[in-house]
Structures are given as structure tokens and as C-alpha cells.
């Protein structure tokens, strides 16, 4: 799994590519903990992520939980079809806001999303 992070308009964008599974999930949590001090609002760009298992999903939920304790949020962008099935059957789509692209996810933060 490869992880990359950059900031745009004070929103942290975490690019995740490869497999997010039981082996790589701790790496994501550690990485997220290291960047979460910089901002509280994040977008996880999952364009390059082709596999997520229950541990990987659990780790994304753990990241959401830790940032929401500080008033922040994580939104997901460019979720691919195969990992999307895991979000579908586990009902995780009810927890996360999932966007087709980064710009839409960014815009959702600008508009406050709920006030659309």
C-alpha cells in the first residue's frame, strides 16, 4: 500500500493506493495519526485503492472516530467499484460521505454539505 498526503484549502487529502487489508491497515492508522495534527478535515482519495477488507474498513472508521472527536470529518473520494461493494454490504456507506471526485468532496466542505 502507498500513502501520500497534501493539503489544499486547509483540507488534508490522503491518497491511498494498493490493498488496504489486515497487513497494511496499521500503517494507515500510524500515518493518519502523524498527519492529523495538521488539520481536522480530510478527504481520503481512494482512486488507487483496489481492495479493502474488514480490517481496512475498520481502520478508516477508527480514523474518522479520532478526527471527529476533534470536531473534524473524513470524506471519501473516488472509491472504486470493487471496494465499494464492501462499503455496500457492511452498510459503511451510511457512515461516510462518498464523492465521485476530489473537487466535489472539497466543495462539500466549502458549502457545509448539510446546507446544500
Amino acid at each position: 500500500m502507498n500513502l501520500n498526503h497534501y493539503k489544499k484549502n486547509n483540507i488534508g487529502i490522503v491518497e491511498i493506493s494498493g490493498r488496504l487489508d489486515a497487513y497494511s491497515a496499521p500503517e494507515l492508522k500510524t500515518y493518519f495519526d502523524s498527519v492529523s495534527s495538521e488539520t481536522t478535515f480530510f478527504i481520503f482519495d481512494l482512486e488507487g485503492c483496489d481492495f479493502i477488507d474488514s480490517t481496512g474498513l475498520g481502520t478508516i472508521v477508527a480514523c474518522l472516530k479520532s478526527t471527529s472527536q476533534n470536531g473534524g470529518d473524513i470524506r471519501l473520494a473516488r472509491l472504486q467499484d470493487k471496494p465499494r461493494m464492501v462499503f455496500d454490504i457492511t452498510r459503511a456507506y451510511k457512515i461516510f460521505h462518498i464523492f465521485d471526485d476530489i473537487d466535489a468532496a472539497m466543495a462539500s466542505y466549502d458549502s457545509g454539505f448539510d446546507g446544500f
Partner: protein
Amino acid sequence: MRCLIYARNTDANWVRAVFPGLEPYLLKLVNKPLLEYFLDFASLLKVKQVRIVSDTSSKEIERYFEKGQKWGIDVSYALAHPEDSVKNVYLKNISFCKEDDLIIMNGFFFIEYNRDSLSQRVSFADLGACMDSGKNLYYIPINVNPSSISFCRFDQSIRIRELENVVEYFKLSMDILANQNKHYVLPGYSNEKNAFYGISFIYPHSCQISKPIMIGNNTRFRDHTIIGPNSIIGDNVVIDDHSEVQNSIIYDNTYVGPDLELNQKIIYRNMLISGLTGDYIQISDNVIISYLEQGIMASFFNVLVQRLIALFLILLMAVPWLVLWVPLLIITRKNLTEYIMEKRGRIKKFCDPLSIKRFWLGRVLLHLSLDKFVRLLFAFAGRLYLVGNHLYVNNAINRKLCKDLEVYNPGVFSLIESKQSGEEAIDEFYELEYINNCSTRNNLVILVKTLYRRLVHGF
């Protein structure tokens, strides 16, 4: 009339990709293999002999259909070269083909038909259907040269339906279940419209089941599950608490984890497949979905731990067993019962706890689990597991149950004994639970619970 089925695997490469390890012609449509529909069709046309020609190994097909006794048809098998045309296959099997009127089914497709009109048919001259892709069904009367037959005379009452990808397969399965089930012989008991239930199926009161539905044998739904409508659940399936399965297909021997929502999905082993798009993903952990298999039960570590504990229990029970050996012998000698030691049906006689329960000394023995002593010796010798599937009494029902279970490794102690006493009415559901959750730790929990239960409450 005879029937030649050319089961060409080149037509079904997508099946191998999406359903790895499955013989394509044994792909189940509503809990029944595709090839079985071909045989049903042939049976309706009063075909007496069928030859199945495969371009790959036909072992699995042969194992399933055997000699065709179940369908009242004489089934034989032959092999073809993968590049053989239907004409070549006809010529290679000419001695079979030329003896009688012949129906040829060529390719990977589904035959849609109206059962009533087909069974009343007296003439077969117009029987035929074909597709552009070269998959076809046609009738060749005896003494007629096949080259003079026009393969594409189209019979309106019969339709060949393409099965070129998993999306078409999904649509067809749902269509058969919901709209066409009266035309086909579907497995399971059905005393209400659009509902088919297998044997040994259990569900709690909190489970909601909606039609159309097809549920296989030895299947268990746990609390607050919502199953159906439009769902096909295979054999030996466990669906855990609070999960919902709608418009979906769950293949045999599958565990579906708790709190899941399956809609328009196919689950095959640990493969999650979208019925709408055909996308598929292999789930590598056992939390969400998994394939029920032997796994830990036969692992070296588990076997080693089990043998060591068996030795410890033998040493612990040796003195009381020797002290009570003579009265025990008197009681047990007349109360030996045959038990099923393995799937193939090997039998061994052991003391029957239900019989010795009638005697006060017998009840003492049961409290101390001394009736298990001889079985423990077998566990130490590796001929039984210490904790495993329930050791079933040898009778016709139990032999079938053991054969149907995906895994039957009987143990001295079993999950059902740790939960209830003696009754064997719903054992098979505990067996599924045990197979699904088997681990060395769980085995130890079962062992301790059973010994405690016996000691405190007796048998």
C-alpha cells in the same frame, strides 16, 4: 430417443474466472446445476439415453450425474478435443447417435421452455433453436443425414437463452425463481407459491423471510436476519445476526457475517460478486464472508493439543474408571450402540449414554463423564478428535446427515453437548456452527463447558 450434450468449456471461461474451482456446467441456477436442466429437458422429451461429451475432464460431472439413475436416464460420457465442432463430436459418437432419433444440445446456454406444452408434444420435427454464436439445440430423426438438417428452424415454445457473463446468469436465476419456477423441477419442499425450502433448515422467530425464496439444505439463519425477497440460499449456509439478504444468491457452504446488507449480490466461497455490474472481489478475511471448510480442525497444532488433553483426561479418569470397571462393564456390555466414525460410514460400537442413564450407577458415570473413557483412548490414538463434530448414532437419517455435512470429524466431545443434554433433534445446526467457528480455543471452551455441565447437571 437419445440425446447428445456437447458441454463445451470454451463457451464458459467467464465461469472459471468468477466461480474458481467450479465445473462450469455444474454452475447452479436456483440451487440446481445447469446440466441438470438439460437432463430434465431430455427427460420431458422421453429421452432414454444421454451422452455427455466434454472437452475437459468430466470427472466432476460424472460424480454428480453418475449413471443417471436419479433421472431415469442412462447417462454415458465421452471426451472431445477442445477445437472439435459439433459435427466432429457427432462423428466421434456416431455409434451412439445413429441408433435412434437424436437431440443435440451444443454449448453453454439455458433452455427456456413451457413444461406443459413440452410434455404434451407428440412431434419433434420442428424442435430446434439456435443462436448466432453457434450454440444450438436441434433434432435429427433416425436415418437422416445431419448435413441435410436446417439447424435454425425455430420453435416458438423453446428459447435458448444466452449465459455469456455473470450478469446474465444473475438475471436468469432471479427470473427462474420469481417467474418461471413452475416450468422446472426445482430442489426443496414447496407447499406455497414461490417458496422452496431444503431439509434441516432452521430459523428463529425473529428472522423475516419473504418470497420468492429458495433455501437449501442444512441452512441456518440467526437472530433478526431478513432474508428475501428474490433470494437463493444454497446448502450449508450460515447467515449471522442482523444481516439482510435481498435479491441475492448465496452459494453452498458459506458463512455470511453479522450486520451485513446484501442486495443484488452473489456470494461464492469468499467471492463477493455484483449481480448488476459483474464486478467481483475476493474477501480475504473471515469476518465479512467466508467459505466453510475443514480449516483448523485438522491442523497439526489442533491435533497435537487435542491428543495431549486426551492423555491428561485418560490419566485423570483412569483410577475411577478402574474402580468402577466391573459394574461399568456389566452396565455397558448390554448397552453398546453403533456410532458413525467417518463420512464413508465406518462404524464403531461405544457405550450409549442414553441407555445407561436408566441406572443410578450409570448416572454417576455420566456425571463423571466416565462413559467417555474408551472414546478418549480412541482420541489419544488419533482415531477420533477430542472435540469435533457430534458422534452420531448409526441410522439412516444420521448417515445422510454426516454425508451432507461439508466436514464430519467426530469428537469425544461436541458443541451440542456443551449446550444441551442428549436430544439430537437439531444437532445439524450446531454442527454448522461448530464447523464455522472451529478453533483450538473454542474446542477448549466446548470441552470445559461439557465437563462442567455433565458434572453439575448430569447427562
